[in-house]
């Protein structure tokens, strides 16, 4: 199938609208939340199919509506936002998810939550230790995928946390305890390998298989921890390969805020990875070329697709379509093949208010149109 150049896709979560947060906690919507709901519904008509639920929610009857129905509306809202912006691949903005670690771990056996660790300032995250062999309690994300599949007009693309990141964000007790003697660097590395592969084989792979069984064709495996320990790039790959072994879907790997060159060429050993979805816009500007690293892919002869981050999710400033187009064209030159590029935000847009997120997505799509025109009519 021939696709037009530079199709756009979503890459992760959206900030939850105020009406969803209030509604799913059973609190009546305040005026601000109602206004937010109405404005967006007039724009995208996301709630048309659930008008009775929407009416009850707007009338202050959140408890009666129930948290699940509010989350359904939240998923429809995100789908509407993405599709109205013109994305070719969409998901639900992770409307039902709160984070990307605790929920998957709670669907598995072999873990015990240990308490909170400070990430910075007064921000914390809950961290579990693996205390027994990892096994899957139940495949997860199935219901949310079914919902997206039933309601999306564009192609669904499901994001799921990868085995390396789940292992890196956990404490390794079980596998480390099996190592003999002092638990130095070499023992820790062996133990981590066992942990990553067990997670991949016994928890992630069966989940992916179940999702594929439900019709999921495009799956983004999120490995934000990959850049934390560049010398473990081989473990990232081993986890990815074990998780996807024997499965038939279009897999991508999302890594952000990392020094990608440090992960190469080991990362290129990831089989069945159809697309690298990386962040670039954050490092582009102020005299720096954030896309230059793509030359390394070309130098290594890697011909996979690239999910190109063209807008920064950590700044409110909305990139102009012209700037986005320039980024796309530069990336295409470095890769030597424009047909391999998808365009997307650097990472999930949950860091931005919804109006900013919407404008950034619109810029992604309009920038892609400009870049497409530049390639298709080079003299225009």
């Amino acid at each position: 199938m021939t696709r037009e150049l530079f199709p756009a896709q979503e890459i992760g979560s959206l900030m939850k609208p105020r009406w969803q947060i209030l509604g799913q906690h059973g609190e009546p919507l305040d005026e601000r939340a109602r206004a937010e709901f109405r404005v967006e519904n007039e724009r995208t008509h996301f709630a048309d199919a659930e008008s009775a639920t929407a009416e009850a929610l707007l009338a202050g009857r959140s408890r009666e509506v129930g948290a699940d129905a509010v989350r359904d509306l939240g998923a429809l809202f995100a789908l509407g936002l993405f599709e109205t912006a013109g994305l070719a691949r969409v998901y639900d903005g992770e409307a039902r998810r709160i984070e990307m670690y605790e929920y998957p771990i709670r669907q598995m056996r072999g873990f015990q939550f240990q308490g909170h660790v400070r990430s910075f300032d007064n921000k914390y995250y809950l961290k579990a230790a693996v205390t027994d062999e990892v096994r899957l309690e139940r495949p997860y994300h199935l219901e949310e995928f079914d919902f997206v599949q039933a309601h999306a007009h564009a192609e669904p693309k499901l994001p799921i946390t990868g085995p390396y990141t789940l292992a890196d964000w956990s404490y390794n007790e079980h596998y480390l305890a099996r190592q003999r003697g002092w638990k130095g660097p070499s023992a820790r590395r062996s133990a981590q390998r066992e942990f990553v592969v067990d997670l991949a084989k016994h928890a992630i792979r069966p989940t992916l298989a179940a999702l594929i069984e439900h019709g999921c064709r495009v799956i983004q495996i999120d490995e934000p921890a990959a850049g934390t320990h560049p010398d473990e790039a081989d473990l990232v790959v081993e986890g990815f390969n074990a998780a996807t072994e024997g499965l038939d879907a279009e897999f991508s790997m999302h890594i952000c805020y990392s020094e990608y060159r440090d992960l190469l060429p080991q990362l290129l050993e990831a089989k069945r990875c159809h697309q690298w979805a990386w962040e670039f816009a954050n490092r582009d500007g102020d005299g720096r070329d954030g896309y230059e690293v793509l030359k390394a892919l070309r130098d290594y002869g890697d011909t996979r697709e690239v999910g190109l981050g063209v807008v920064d999710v950590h700044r409110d400033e909305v990139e102009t379509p012209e700037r986005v187009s320039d980024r796309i064209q530069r990336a295409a030159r470095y890769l030597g093949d424009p047909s391999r590029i998808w365009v997307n935000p650097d990472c999930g847009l949950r860091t931005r208010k919804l109006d900013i997120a919407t404008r950034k997505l619109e810029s992604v799509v309009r920038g892609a149109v400009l870049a497409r025109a530049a390639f298709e009519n080079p003299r225009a």
Partner: protein
Amino acid sequence: MHVRTGLTGPFPRSEALVSATRDLDRGRASAEVVEALYLRTEAEVVALEQRLGLDTVTGGYLRWPDLFRPFAETWEGFTVGPLTRWFETNTFYRQPILHAPPGRIPGAISARLPPPLRADPEHAGVILPGPYTFAGLLENRSGETDEALVHRLGRLLAEETRELAGLGYTTFQFTEPLLVDRPPSGASAEAVLAAYRAIQTSIGRGTSLVWTYGGDANPVFPLLDRLPVSGVGVDLAETDWEAIPSSSEPRGLGLGVIDPRTTLGEDPSEVVRIVRTLQQRRRPSTLWLGPGGPLDLVPWEPAARKLEVLPAVRQALAQRDGGSS
């Protein structure tokens, strides 16, 4: 030979303090309530340190957002910059930005030390950034060369420790993960030596310990052995302990025997075996035992549990030494 034990970095916040500080940020708790909880939790950390027989008390440095913030917020020439990953961890610090040659403000850091330390400076473990790590992890827009900056920060830290020594503090740790992550050489190494000469002079008869962590210390041991300080500490979970060089100098040696990256407890007999081997190889005048790095990489309960290895190891060493420690 003396064996001393103590924390080598911040202790994790309790679950109650986690909740309270979150609530503070969300406007659901008052500053007074959180302050009371800080005081209570610091007292709990001190009680734990005392129960375990640690030689220094720290109170956990629970209020310090990161190693540099008290300096970046109070010293002249700095602003507080963007969130930046702290080495190979999932924790972050705000990178100090240095716009002009730095200057210290007398009294500013002593006022930021945990209250239990201020109440009992003689037994306090003062944990400060080392000049090399401080200079290397800030964004230097001051126009000074990196070497000059290491030297200048060393002199400022020397003034700081002189002031603290005047207040009765005697034990100072300089935290230097960058020494093993990015070992200095040439002029850079000379700047580190000069910085520590200034610091050691200011401390006088007090104790100065340079604590490295997060990487293998073996490549930097030739420099560590030249540092004019009471002792140097290494992270045994990251350092190939079997390759640690021998030494004929009767210097202090710090061994990070607790791995803060895992909640799995250390086996005391295994720790004793390694410590004994290194004792024979290095013949240290004083042996410091503690966590390899900041123990706040694990939550409160496992952190407290893991610390139990320190008195167990100390007791085992004392028995084999015939009670000399």
